[in-house]
């Protein structure tokens, strides 16, 4: 685990930069994490990020794209537009959650 600084916040991250402490996250930090990967958060982004934040403590795991799509009502296609390339990982990074592990 590594300590890094985003803006003024000291946060714990893993070797790929994913936040490891759920409670170190704030919406302001989320905005800065998004900026790090070139995303400016709109209301549409926040709908997905807030769902991930609320779902994680209940499930103990980061939601998959399909789960976000089904339960938050955001089509997968839209998630690819909002978080281009690798939406599941980018959403987790911004939401301060562990990288979703592809189930073995």
């Amino acid at each position, binding site marked *: 685990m590594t300590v890094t600084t985003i803006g003024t916040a000291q946060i714990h991250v893993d*070797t*790929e930069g994913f936040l490891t402490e759920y409670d170190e996250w704030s919406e302001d930090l989320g905005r800065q994490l998004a900026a790090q990967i070139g995303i400016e958060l709109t209301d549409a982004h926040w709908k997905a990020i807030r769902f991930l934040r609320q779902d994680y403590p209940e499930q103990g795991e980061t939601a998959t794209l399909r789960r976000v799509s089904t*339960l938050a009502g955001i089509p997968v296609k839209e998630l690819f537009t909002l978080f281009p390339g690798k939406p599941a990982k980018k959403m987790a990074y911004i939401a301060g959650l562990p990288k979703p592990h592809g189930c*073995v």
Partner: protein
Amino acid sequence: MRRLLVLGGGTAGTMVANKLRRRLDRAQWQITVVDQNDAHLYQPGLLFIPFGGYSPEQVVKPRRQFIGAGIDLVLGEIDRVDPEANVVLLADGQRLGYDYLVIATGTSPRPDQTPGMLGPLWRHSIFDFYSLDGATALAGALAAFDGGRLVVHIVDMPVKCPVAPLEFTFLAEAYFRHRGMRDRVEIVYATPLSGAFTKPIASAQLGTMLDERKIAVESDFMVERIDDDTKVLVSYDEREIPFDLLVTVPLNMGADCVARSGLGDELNYVPVDKHTLLSKAHGNIFAIGDANNIPTSKAGSVAHFSTDVFTDNFCQHVAGQPMTGSFDGHANCFVESGDGKGMLIDFNYDTEPLTGSYPIPVLGPFGLLRESTANHWGKLAFRWMYWHMLLPGRPIPLPAHMSMAGKHQPAVQQTTDQQTTESTSRKAGQS
């Protein structure tokens, strides 16, 4: 009389019913298994059918033959569970009450979930091999294939037996080579994962094996639809993969009766405690085998190992005692790699598949993540074990919990405190 009702007479349901029949007093406990038909399919055998390795008769037997004495088998379609009333309703109107319910309804390929999959090309140029019909039809298509682009494709994770698509790819490559037509077949492996497999060490090893066989990998490919007119897979990020022959693993979903009962997650899997398999919502419902949402492989080995832990736990639970067993997510899979060879992987929730060797008295050791003929023969011998040892619930000398014996420990990953924000964000952006 206390009533245990088991939904599903597949690998997990049959094992559990047989094991618990020996443990629960017949004067006090009635055990009933419900399934929609009397055909038990040996699912690991499906992999070999497209290449003419097994006939359908070798992989299907009557369920009744494996359900032990003292267990009732009810054939009928399950409509839904009413967990408040402790009743299961069948489509024909039967009502089966229970004191304890074990859901073992598995997971199934759902080609209907991808637009274009069940179109005019289905079973003509598009095949699955996770069903007996699909595997049998694919055998004909492979025999008739005279060259072009074969795409092996996974819609989304999790899928049951997650190594099977790779095994199919290795076997197809060897098959075309032996027919002297490998130079006329381009093989592409399209996966929603970022590499050949989920975990780093196995992914690297299996990725190298794909490279050596000149099989192209299209990673992070999340299919949105199939265009039947142009014979192209189209992803959400608008990449296209053309095919002449598509062998796809459709989206896997738990049973619809789980969804109708309000007991499932977004893929109809029953959320359970990953160590005890007890439903998170109901204290008298367990979900075993592929039907639950535990974060390990959907595989017969997991059903087997978890059942060992589950059986003891169940007896404690119904006696009002705390459950002391804790399932560790142990999975153990033979991986066919073609040319009469195979590999073995062994892992659990916390330990990814590693290299090394897997000790088994007399037969072993088997090489882990290393190709050998012994592993191939181990895989073939398993069919006998399955029918004669595993389903009847006889003890098999494999420990339920994963052991580190024989495994090579990877070097601990070095981390530093000097990592900069810049490199951190760059990695996340790439990954």
